[in-house]
């Protein structure tokens, strides 16, 4: 097995062009498990940890954030909690401290597992993925990124270089159900972002379908309710029935299965609870204009 260790993005891209079958490895927290269990035998590994361009984040002109694909979760939590509240909350739930020290959003996207914890937030905030190859750069909305179970639009000569996240104009939440209190893969998860700027809301569902999903009906419903009641302008508490209906619509958007981690029926049920609760927290934050309740 070849072990390619480029030290610049240009070298990494040309290596990937020369050897499209080379498997990129960032934190390695997915790749090494697959190798250890002999689920994968790549002819080459492309180590991205020495590519400086991937390991940084910077503000964008429109107030958003360009997050390098290789920035580990620990840094997202410590450096970006205020800029990217939803993503930082999701990052906080990933694995253990060791995993968070190594694991990256680029790797989460590369693996494209429906259970990946960052996806619901990326969907909810309407992030975009920057993909590069020697052919050029393209920016794909994350909502178009996932194409199937552990599949994405990533081409074999491309690398994920960054994730582009819009400015957090309102409260964001992330919540995940697992069957123990830490270090657990999501049975189901939910991300929510309120966008007071354009009066919309964003959602993301994890681990309850072949890909991460949006709850579009729920988004429309809530957007409509908030507009009808002029609630963005004069934010009153949301009624129980609105929160409940939102939860039901989120549950309906899911396409879960029964597996060792949980039943489809439970996943739907839990999603409705998570959606209802996260909406309550986010709206409370919006109303009080207070700090995000960041995990």
């Amino acid at each position, binding site marked *: 097995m070849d072990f390619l260790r480029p030290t610049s993005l240009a070298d990494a891209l040309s290596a990937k062009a020369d050897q499209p079958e080379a498997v990129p490895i960032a934190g390695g927290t997915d790749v090494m498990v697959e190798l250890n269990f002999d689920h994968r035998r790549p002819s080459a590994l492309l180590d991205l940890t020495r590519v400086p361009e991937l390991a940084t984040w910077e503000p964008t002109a429109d107030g958003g954030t360009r997050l390098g694909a290789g920035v580990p979760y620990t840094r997202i939590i410590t450096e970006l909690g205020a800029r990217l509240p939803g993503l930082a909350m999701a990052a*906080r739930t990933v694995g253990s401290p060791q995993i968070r020290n190594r694991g990256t959003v680029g790797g989460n996207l590369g693996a494209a597992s429906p259970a990946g914890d960052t996806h619901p937030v990326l969907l909810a905030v309407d992030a975009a993925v920057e993909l590069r190859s020697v052919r050029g750069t393209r920016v794909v909305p994350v909502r178009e990124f996932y194409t199937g179970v552990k599949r994405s639009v990533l081409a074999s000569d491309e690398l994920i270089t960054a994730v582009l996240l819009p400015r957090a104009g309102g409260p964001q939440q992330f919540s*995940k159900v697992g069957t123990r*209190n830490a270090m657990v*893969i999501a049975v189901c998860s939910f991300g929510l972002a309120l966008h007071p700027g354009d009066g919309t809301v964003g959602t993301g569902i994890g681990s309850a379908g072949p890909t991460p999903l949006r709850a579009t009906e729920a988004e429309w419903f809530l957007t409509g309710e908030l507009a009808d009641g002029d609630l963005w302008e004069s934010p009153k508490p949301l009624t129980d029935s609105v929160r409940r209906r939102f939860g039901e619509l989120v549950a309906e958007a899911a396409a879960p299965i029964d597996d060792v981690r949980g039943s489809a029926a439970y996943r739907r049920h839990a999603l409705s609870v*998570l959606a209802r609760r996260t909406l309550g927290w986010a709206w409370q934050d919006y109303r009080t204009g207070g700090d995000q309740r960041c995990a």
Partner: protein
Amino acid sequence: MTKPAEVTRSTTGGIGESPLRPDGALKVRGEFAYSSDLWHEDMVWGVTLRSPHPHARIRSVDLTEALRVPGVHAVLTHQDVPGTNRYGLEHADQPVLAVDLVRYHGEPVALVAADHPETARRAMKRIKVDYEVLTPVSDAEHAVHGDGPRLHRDGNVVRHVPIRRGDQNATAPVVVHGVYEVGMQDQAFLGPESGLAVPAEDGGVDLFVATQWLHVDQRQICYALGLPADKVRLTLAGVGGAFGGREDLSIQVHACLLARHTGKPVKMVYNREESFYGHVHRHPAKLYYEHGATEDGRLVYVRSRIYLDGGAYASSTPAVVANAATLGFGPYNVDNVTMDCWGVYTNNPPCGAMRGFGAVQAGFAYESQMDKLAAALGMDPVEVRVRNAMSEGSTMPTGQVLDSAAPVAELLRLVRDRPMPAERGELDLRAMPGGVSNTTHGEGVVRGVGYAVGVKNICFSEGFDDYSTARLRLEVLGGEPAATIHTAAAEVGQGLVTIEQQIVRTELGIQQVTVHPADTTVGNGGSTSASRQTYVTGGAVKAACEAVREKLLKLAVTRFGEPRANLTPAEIVSVLGTEVIEETVEWRHRPTTALDPETGQGFAHVQYGFAAHRAVVDVDVELGLVKVVELACAQDVGKALNPQAVVGQIHGGSVQGLGLAVMEEIQVTEGKVRNPSFTDYLIPTILDTPPMPVDVLELADPHAPYGLRGVGEPPTISSTPAVVAAIRAATGLALTRVPVRPEHLTLEEPR
């Protein structure tokens, strides 16, 4: 070669103190040599081809392609087993390598040795096995009473233990029924099965292996290899946890076979997934109970039927059945009892020893029943237990009278009377059900409190000749008296090596004590199971000390011209001079007797251990997530030889019981294991582990060395039902199955 480390570094401290473990610092620093770290120049690697089917006939096995792989040294099947192709702890019913039938998912079919583990695995994948897939027998109750296929010559019942005592037709005004289920728990030790077999010039083999019982391994290896005992020598390698899962063979015969065929040292190490196939698990159980009581809450009768799923091979099922039966009514006085307990063959993974050994399954059921009874009577759950609690002088359902302390009521009162943990304060997600996953900020969270008490037999039972051997050598080294203690008893992480040193220091009044690596050049040490090593090997070490001291005192008479009762270290030096005293002693606990096959009566157990728990939980009743807030335990240990180790055992046992209550289960569907990984077989993390205050009672047992009572298992019995009782208290649900899963808490009808 790297060999098992001599964990000998002398620490100070006699019994009743808590000296540091000699292996502690090494383990914390990651420097301890586990069995998976063994290495030998020129060694080759062995791997095991396992059946993908739970039940299938083997039509043919074709090794041709595997043998062609460069670097392969041997590919073996059952035809290469020189002795008898059978092994087993109690019944030799399990083939070393499958012949024409596989009876469980993961059963070994063939072996490969190659110069690299990758090569071995690649070759293994080229072995062609033609299977005729058969329908698996997967329901234990049906396997006993149904008319499905017989999986073994003598049918599907491994053992049936009945107990009949008192009036079999007793009636009572208050009656509660229940049907309970216990899922398949795994020992989940961290160090996977591994070892190194080195062929010897005398035609024998030296095996370095992580095990719980060197001599029972040796016996089974000899039988399979057709070799006498002096040709099969075992040394204990560093053991990364056991909990019962290393009592049966894993790599032992396989590695020795490969070593003898290749003439090379052979190393075998399972990975995590293979480990789930490579050892027995806790028996899943279905338990039917009926309790009858008077209106003031006194038990009149208990009737029970228990089905323990032993899986494909017997392993220690017979003894597990006896435990579940004889301990199946709990530590309660009840005159009229009826029990039928079956251990059954199915095509599920083999089940055998795991901490608690039959008492765990029964404990969940009888304690759930006691709560049900309390509810039916409108009585406090602790009160109903105290009212029926056994005490010294009580009679077990086997007719055995408890002839030492049995402080059941006191243990219950101790946990009940502890101050309650504080109510939840400011929002800290780590303290919430769901933890840092941010599932609740208090919504839906209900607190519940539950109690349970349990009983476990200590040491081997039913007339088993249960003994240990200790060899003690005393000499002067560097001007100081120095002892070397040698046993074959396995240190599996519990701290036996520390205890052995403590006993020698106390008995001989010297400081320098070295523990010789455990091996088969000394007599049988018995199993590291049944909470027995401090009792039995501790007893043997104490007896060896006494034998050495007797000789020493005789020498002292010659030296001083008069008898002396005690000798200071300086006096020992001058008495010994250049002489060496070495004594080997076999020590047995008091004998037990068999159970009457019809009535289940008999003096079956050596000693009983009792523990009680109070669990306080927060349940998110909408999401079905549980946070155990506190798990208090009270246990009588007779005498705490090493108080810190005692509390460590109680904490560990409690957490293992908590795991069974809320998360730990090997999920098996139609005989197939669905979650053989630590990704999906969940064990508690530190955020699932609550504060665990412990009350330790020391009520000496006059029959046991130092009055001690085995510690390791009792806390595992009562922990599970206490946690579940607390969840019931919070949710009002019946919860008749463990582990309790979120869907049980959210999608089930309230009782």
